């Protein structure tokens, strides 16, 4: 039914890889920032709070452009990472993952922060009296209790990463096989005569992936609820 060309399959596979990598790398930062915002008071917290949510309100093109001038190969951060860690972002799929991770980040942080704020701190005190140091309290009580929020954050970030367009194309362009995701491929196909059929196929794939992500999140949320409240 869906007779995708190899080039289209490449775009689908690339989109999935970029979204998975972006979400996986965003997760530890998402938990750390969510925890800082939920649990601590520090000077400049409002600024951090604002910075985290900036990609949500900025035009994606602006975010992409900022990434370009900071993480490009000759840009300050980009040059540093290239030189000392051999990590290159510009015009690579890794750059697309960075852009998607940044764009999905606010959507990930918000539910994690809310879940951490909702945890009964008295349970953490109880764990401490039972011999758990701060790290173990976090691992055995805080994280499991925040799990529904973490799952929600992961799904939202993944969905955003899968559909990201503006920041990605601005930062790493639209190179088939390297940075051309489903969204970018659809955009390209709509710009050429006779591309409608191929674009239609990719649109169907995009819809199917979005549905799959939604169903997966529902399933995970239900499982988490069963764990807490009993079957």
């Amino acid at each position, binding site marked *: 039914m869906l007779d995708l060309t190899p080039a289209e399959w490449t775009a689908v596979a690339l989109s999935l890889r970029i979204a998975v990598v972006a979400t996986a790398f965003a997760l530890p930062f998402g938990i750390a920032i969510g925890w800082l915002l939920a649990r601590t008071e520090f000077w400049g917290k409002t600024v951090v709070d604002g910075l985290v949510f900036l990609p949500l309100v900025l035009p994606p093109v602006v975010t992409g452009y900022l990434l370009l001038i900071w993480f490009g190969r000759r840009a300050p951060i980009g040059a540093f990472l290239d030189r000392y860690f051999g990590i290159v972002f510009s015009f690579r799929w890794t750059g697309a993952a960075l852009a998607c991770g940044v764009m999905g980040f606010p959507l990930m942080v918000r539910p994690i922060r809310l879940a951490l704020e909702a945890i009964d701190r008295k349970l953490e*005190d109880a764990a401490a009296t039972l*011999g758990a140091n701060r790290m173990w309290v976090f691992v055995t009580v805080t994280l499991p*209790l925040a799990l529904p929020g973490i799952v929600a954050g992961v799904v939202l970030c993944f969905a955003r990463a899968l559909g990201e367009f503006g920041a990605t194309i601005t930062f790493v362009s639209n190179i088939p096989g390297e940075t051309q995701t489903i969204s970018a491929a659809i955009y390209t196909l709509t710009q050429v005569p006779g591309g409608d059929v191929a674009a239609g196929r990719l649109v169907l794939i995009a819809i199917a992936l979005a549905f799959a992500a939604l169903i997966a999140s529902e399933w995970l949320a239900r499982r988490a609820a069963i764990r807490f409240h*009993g079957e």
Partner: protein
Amino acid sequence: MTVLAVDVEKQLGTLRLAVRFKAEGGATALFGASGAGKTSIVNMIAGLLTPDRGAIAIDDTVLFDSARGINMPPYRRRIGYVFQEGRLFPHLSVRQNLDYGRRMSGRHRNPKEFERIVALLDIGRLLDRRPRLLSGGERQRVAVGRALLLEPRILLLDEPLASLDVAHKREILPYLVLLRDDAGIPIVYVSHTAAELRRIATTVVRLDAGLVVASGGLELLDDANGDGLD
């Protein structure tokens, strides 16, 4: 015999808390009206609240001493604490709740002791349930078991019956009496209910507005009213 020595001061809003007492063997009741500072005292013993000044020690082990700058963190104090609301971990089964203290302190499994305490509190058929599915009385028995399985130096019980109705109070009281005679460690028992303490306490420390107004035997409970437990 193990002796808990408390001598602490703490300013809590408008309440000036300054208490000094010893607890050894049996069950020492912290008795007084709500707002007298009872829970704050046990929180300081457990290490969840830091006194402004003073010292807390169990025998030769100093838990807190402001003069010497000692403040042992709660996870190293090994003090069994049964909270008013139980505070069982909702994401763990009863068995995992009971086992939590042992796992966190890295001790070996001790099936005999586990079985003994499960039998003492009669919670064997609850082991695979989630806390959410327990009745109030069952929840508190599991909370007591969880604290005991820590193999604590002393046991703190903060209004363990307050959230229960009279029937459940009657159900759990005999277990607590059994515990007092069986555990062999000092128990600090917080309550504002004289009838409950008459069944459990061996010594009474009477508190009023953050101060110890009397300490001695059960006769200190006499001018208070019962609540139908006798």
